């Protein structure tokens, strides 16, 4: 525990001092999750990324005010949420204006951190699931992603990576052994089940 706090303290010191590598560390930690979160609200990949870039710019301007890594995370998610909600509002206002309505009054979005936010919870879970995939060994991860996330066939993966068909299957099996969340295995299992049965017959 001591060691972790120490590391966090150093990170925050460097961050406050404007060290780009400390900033990059935080950027990498949260970027995908923030984009996913913003995209769930604005339903537009490019806008989501722009809004997240904005949040990081704000974070950079305020880098002296943070006492913990989790307060940085909270700041990023709250500003991204506010920006995303404002973005949809202005988009709506814009389309209303075109229809010559002008009475819409902007409301300031208030955010209660104790209020439960399902989209944020979803983002947190997706981030942790994704981290589980990211923790797989290199080749295993590449193959699992191509198969599971991109839905590519074994032959196709084998050709792209210049591997044998059997290596691809073996790496998929390995991924399944290493991944803890049963749900990630469901869509890939039936095929591999067949492979296992085959193995048992041929040996």
């Amino acid at each position, binding site marked *: 525990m001591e060691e972790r706090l120490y590391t966090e303290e150093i990170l925050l010191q460097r961050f406050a001092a404007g060290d780009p590598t400390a900033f990059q560390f935080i950027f990498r930690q949260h*970027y995908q999750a923030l984009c996913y979160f913003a995209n769930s609200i604005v339903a537009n*990949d490019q806008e989501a990324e722009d809004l997240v870039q904005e949040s990081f710019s704000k974070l950079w301007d*305020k880098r002296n005010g943070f006492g913990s890594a989790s307060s940085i995370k*909270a700041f990023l998610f709250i500003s991204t949420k506010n920006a995303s909600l404002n973005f949809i509002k202005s988009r709506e206002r814009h389309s209303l204006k075109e229809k010559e309505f002008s009475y819409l009054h902007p409301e300031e979005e208030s955010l209660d951190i104790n209020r439960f936010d399902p989209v944020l919870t979803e983002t947190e879970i997706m981030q942790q699931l994704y981290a589980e995939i990211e923790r797989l*060994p290199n080749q295993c991860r590449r193959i699992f992603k191509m198969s599971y*996330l991109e839905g590519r066939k074994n032959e196709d993966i084998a050709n792209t990576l210049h591997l044998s068909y059997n290596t691809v299957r073996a790496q998929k099996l390995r991924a399944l052994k290493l991944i803890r969340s049963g749900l990630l295995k469901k869509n890939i299992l039936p095929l591999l089940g067949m492979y296992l049965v085959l193995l048992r017959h041929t040996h």
Partner: protein
Amino acid sequence: MEADQHKELFPFLQRAAYLIRQHQQGLLTAAEQEELHTWIGASLENQRLFDQMTDPAFLQEHLHRFEKFDTEAGWNNFRALHFPSRQARLRPLFGWWSAAAILLMLVGIGLFFRHQSSTSRPLAAIQASPVVPGHSRALLTLADGSVIPLDSNGNRVIAQQGATVQQQNGQLQYLAQGDATTAMNMLTTPRGGQFRLTLPDGTKVWLNAASSIRYPTAFTGTQRTVEIRGEAYFEVAPVANKPFTVKINQNTSIAVLGTGFNVNAYTDEPFIRTTLIEGAISVHTGNTSRVLAPGQQALVNGPAIQVSDHADTTAILAWKREAFYFQEADISSVMRQLSRWYDVTVVYEGSMPSRRFQGEIERNLPLADVLEGLESTGIHFRLQGRTIIVTP
């Protein structure tokens, strides 16, 4: 300090996310199960979230969506805007730690350097005689003293008295035998080598460079004991009433129940570090012993054992997934790893640079690429034969 009011980040969110994650991994306790059920029943919103998070098709699609956001591209945009010049990025900052400029090496740095190397300054001496990375190779010493060299593309059965050993590429497997007579074998990796081994009880061992393991060809007694030097990762097969012990030196050993753990016991490293990934082990030295929980690391420091929580397992197991991983590493620690893997000697000229390094590099790159990457922090290297000379 305005931002600091959010110190506790969304407590309800964290709890709900935790419960759903435990559910996804099948790790809920009875009490948590009930808590989750109550939570799901509390609102339609909760019910909906739970349904989505347990729907394989939803997860698959949304993870794909998650993945499509490209962190490196995002970072490049951000960096171009806020940290325009490269010099500025690496300039030391205030404070005692600031003397150490940090290099953050990107995962996949290899590709980056390969693209760069045609345009950047060539390291002439290095390119003249490329030092290639290590690969699967080892020496197997049988009980009668004969030595068999193993490399990464052998497929054969090695017969010896009382034991059958199968080599398949970079792996060696002992087959369990009913009435085997026991003999001691030893597997040794040179600098620049690595190998995998399955012991007769099914225990799996990954042996890093410049390491060795000594073991019986059958575990016949009431104990399973092996001896190691250097670094190894163990996945010990659980066998009832037959404890597994890893001896490191005269004083220090690890007692194991079915589990996975990493031991780093290189004699040129300052401490023996044992990190538990899962299961349970106890570390013994002299009269002291400590039991580890998963994620903990024991550091044997003379007669004492220090245990730290939250060991960085990504860093510790990097070698097993064929990468170097540096976390706040000083130059000598970086060079020790490189020298073991590339089988080179390291000499320091002038004062030792005080920089610290952070990041991950694949282990299958030529030494020149790795050095070139390190040179971008302002440290300089010269290569003479198999000796690297480090200059500030």
